[in-house]
């Protein structure tokens, strides 16, 4: 079921969605024509951003912003790059065991920044590839080749290896030191990772792995809202960009008589309540100005100059509520990406923030973040350039809100259906078709 949208709201959403798509439509000079992590000079390729790009191209075709041939060519180019990339796990390779390093050199596609082999970012890349596979379903030779490429890429991801013998999936691995210490604990954006890992035909995880992860969940009542806690807003959004969680429940959600979609709505309400309270007394926060999530921040030299009042400003970091970190930095796109869950307050916030802080928009594209507490000459500090993750989630969530296109494509994906079922999801659109 798709929400009815007022014409004025739809016009605004259309403008925002098209602008976000513009990030992926640019002529990137990166290998495979893939978009870079962000628009700053020399930025590397982010594998997650490529996943968003692969998901946004079909949207653009359907909206008439891009030809199917162009979308197919761009998708094929990216997928062929990954299929042919070096998988040795060497420090300058592109990946290992089907996973990819988080950041790749824009010219060579090889690892940069000593980045980690990232499990969740690989999952976002694969999710995008599966969207492309579902969309390009004709018998055309290139579309057929694309589907085979995606099966190959998905099939070679060795999800079991990423458990490192443990109960759950590790966050990352580096050739210099092996698996990273950081554990996944508590709810976060990783459901899509687990669903894909469980749905794999070649290296499927055991069901117990998902239960091991959900065992760390915390169901909390905060500000009068009961929900599965996760501080930063993106944790409640990223998996939802691909998977329609309306009406389907795993064991945990059955116990709580809730679902992950409703949970994200409550998380959005908690964000708004937090901004209303504004415990750290940052400028700008109110019912229409919120969005604490993973985003860029003022950090660095500016922070050093302003630390006199005891406040510590972060660079790129996952900000969250109600426990923080909170340095007064907000992401305007964070509210828009909650549109499907809580359209009334998300739209209200989107309008409120663009009216009060137009400087956070570059045209109609959201900057990664803005910070009204660090205003100069009446304008809030604003992150420079654009980040692909932000543009991708904006385009996908607006489209899901308007037509449910990506959700429908993934509902038809057998790997996703299988992964959800193996994770214990039942009901709703997962009921077996007659």
């Amino acid at each position, binding site marked *: 079921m798709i929400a009815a949208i007022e014409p004025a709201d739809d016009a605004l959403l259309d403008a925002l969605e098209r602008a976000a798509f513009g990030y992926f439509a640019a002529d990137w000079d990166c290998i495979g024509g893939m978009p870079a992590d962000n628009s700053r000079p020399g930025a590397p390729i982010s594998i997650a951003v490529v996943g968003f790009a692969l998901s946004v191209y079909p949207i653009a075709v359907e909206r008439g912003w891009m030809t199917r041939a162009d979308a197919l060519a761009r998708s094929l180019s990216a997928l062929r790059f990954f299929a042919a990339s070096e998988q040795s796990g060497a420090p300058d390779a592109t990946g290992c065991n089907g996973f990819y390093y988080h950041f790749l050199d824009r010219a060579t596609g090889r690892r940069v920044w000593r980045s980690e082999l990232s499990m969740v970012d690989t999952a976002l890349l694969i999710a995008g590839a599966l969207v492309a596979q579902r969309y390009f379903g004709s018998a055309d030779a290139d579309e057929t080749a694309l589907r085979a490429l995606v099966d190959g890429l998905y099939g070679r991801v060795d999800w079991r290896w990423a458990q490192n013998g443990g109960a759950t999936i590790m966050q990352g691995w580096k050739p210099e*030191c092996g698996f*990273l*210490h950081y554990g996944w604990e508590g709810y976060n954006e990783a459901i899509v990772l687990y669903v894909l890992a469980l749905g794999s035909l070649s290296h499927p995880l055991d069901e117990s792995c998902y239960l091991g992860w959900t*065992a760390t969940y915390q*169901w*909390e009542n*905060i500000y009068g809202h009961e929900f599965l806690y996760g501080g930063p807003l993106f944790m409640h959004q990223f998996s939802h960009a691909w998977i329609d969680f309306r009406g389907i429940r795993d064991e945990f959600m059955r116990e709580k008589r809730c679902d992950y979609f409703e949970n994200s709505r409550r998380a959005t309400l908690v964000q708004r309540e937090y901004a209303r*309270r504004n415990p750290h007394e940052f400028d700008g926060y109110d019912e229409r100005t919120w969005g604490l999530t993973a985003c860029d921040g003022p950090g660095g030299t500016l922070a050093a100059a302003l630390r006199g009042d005891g406040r510590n400003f972060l660079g790129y970091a996952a900000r969250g509520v*109600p426990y*923080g970190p909170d340095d007064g930095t907000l992401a305007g796109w964070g509210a828009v990406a909650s549109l499907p869950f809580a359209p009334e307050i998300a739209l209200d916030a989107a309008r409120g923030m663009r009216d009060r802080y137009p400087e956070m928009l570059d045209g109609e594209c959201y900057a990664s973040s803005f910070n009204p507490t660090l205003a100069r000459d009446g304008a809030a500090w604003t992150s420079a350039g654009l980040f692909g993750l932000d543009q991708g989630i904006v385009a996908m969530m607006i489209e899901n809100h308007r037509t449910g296109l990506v959700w429908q494509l993934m509902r038809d994906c057998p790997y996703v259906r299988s992964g959800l079922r193996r994770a214990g999801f039942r009901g709703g659109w997962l009921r077996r078709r007659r």
Partner: protein
Amino acid sequence: MDDRLQPSEYERQRLANVRPPQWRNPVPPRKPYHLVVIGGGPAGLVAAESAIELGARVAVVERNALGGNCLNYGCVPSKALIRTARVYGDLRLARHYGACAPETSDVAFAAIMERMRRIRARISRVDSAQRLCEAGVDVFFGEAAFTGPASIEVGGARLAFRRALIATGARPDTPKIPGLAEAGYLTNETVFDLAVLPKRLLVIGGGPLGCELAQAFCRFGARTTIAQDAPLFLPKEERDAAQLLSEALARDGVEVRLNTAAVRVCVDNGEKVVDLVSDDYHSRIAVDEILTGVGRVPNVSGLNLEAAGVAYDAATGIATDDFLRTSNRRIYAAGDATLAHAFTHTADASARIVVRNALLRGKARVSALTIPWCTYTDPEIAHVGLYVREARERNIPVRTFTIPMHDVDRAITDGEERGFVKIHVHDHSDRILGATIVARHAGEMINEITLAMVANIGLSTLARVIHAYPTQAEAIRAAAIAFERTQLPMRSRAR
């Protein structure tokens, strides 16, 4: 220059109480003692005094100083330092409170340590050998070793017993880092002897002791780094609590190095140089002192436990059953020597269980204890009962009622808003399973939850308990009221 403390008058007073220099051990009676207690720390002293009140013949054997770790190297001296550190922390935030910042907040480290020693000496009066003797306890100083299943030897004297209690406590564990021993390091048993504030301090280990002292020394002005070989401090605590602690330490100026291991130490030009590794990132830090706080190991060596038939493990201590009885049915153990929860209050509680079971044929169980604990950083982190993950591992459906301290009027007026009260209840009732509190006075607040759990008072009842306004403990009632709201039928809510 010797940075260790020379004995002061207060130190002489303390030692006169807990390890009198001219002490002469008594002559053991011909009849066996009803209870021989090995170890004069919190568990041993509580057991001895409780047994005396029952009319028992009791001996206490202590090899070092009465009062144990708590009085001499642990809770008492560290909390004295932490109180002063809080003053300095508040002074630096004077403007935040609308007060004028003092022109200087120079730290008089000698005065800080002297205050700590004065307080320690004062509290030592309660644990004095003289007072124990007057109560009727035979106090022996020296190394105790079992000579059989019903006797020990101390200083050449043989003490026969009907029951014995092993309450030998624990000592700091030492990380196995090449070069550390040669370079020299501090533990909780030596840090309180410092005479000079180290300019640069590295704390290895992010447990309670490491975090508390890192924050305190940083507030005194030491350039402090803390290295923790895990993603968060206090690994057993709730993630959000540990995260708040990381931020609090960083706000104070502590350089926080999580996921970081110290792998090598050397001395170069009088500096202690430590190699640190975080995944693939290698760095080097030069400091004046290294404090280790990586945990504690039970004191079980030298007791000749084999002669008594007492099973033990060097890492986990004396093996006991739920009644705190060892593999020798005459012999019990209590406190840090046997318990996973190494706190003064659990030592106390376990000692009372032993006295009841050993002397009164009781059946008190250690598993029945409801044990709160607290890490005395600023903010404090206190916990009681189950964590959510423990409840879920036991298939107990759980939900949590959270009140951020920034929703509590008194916390706002006090400028102490960073933290929360989380109360975990069984999903289908108001039964409290556990709670975590992060607040400046969390250690005081957790006691209300502990009382509720011990007395089987549910969250609904706590909602009816009027709390004085404005107090920070109102957060507990607010959580209870949040619970009550979820119990209202929809029709009642509409009215």
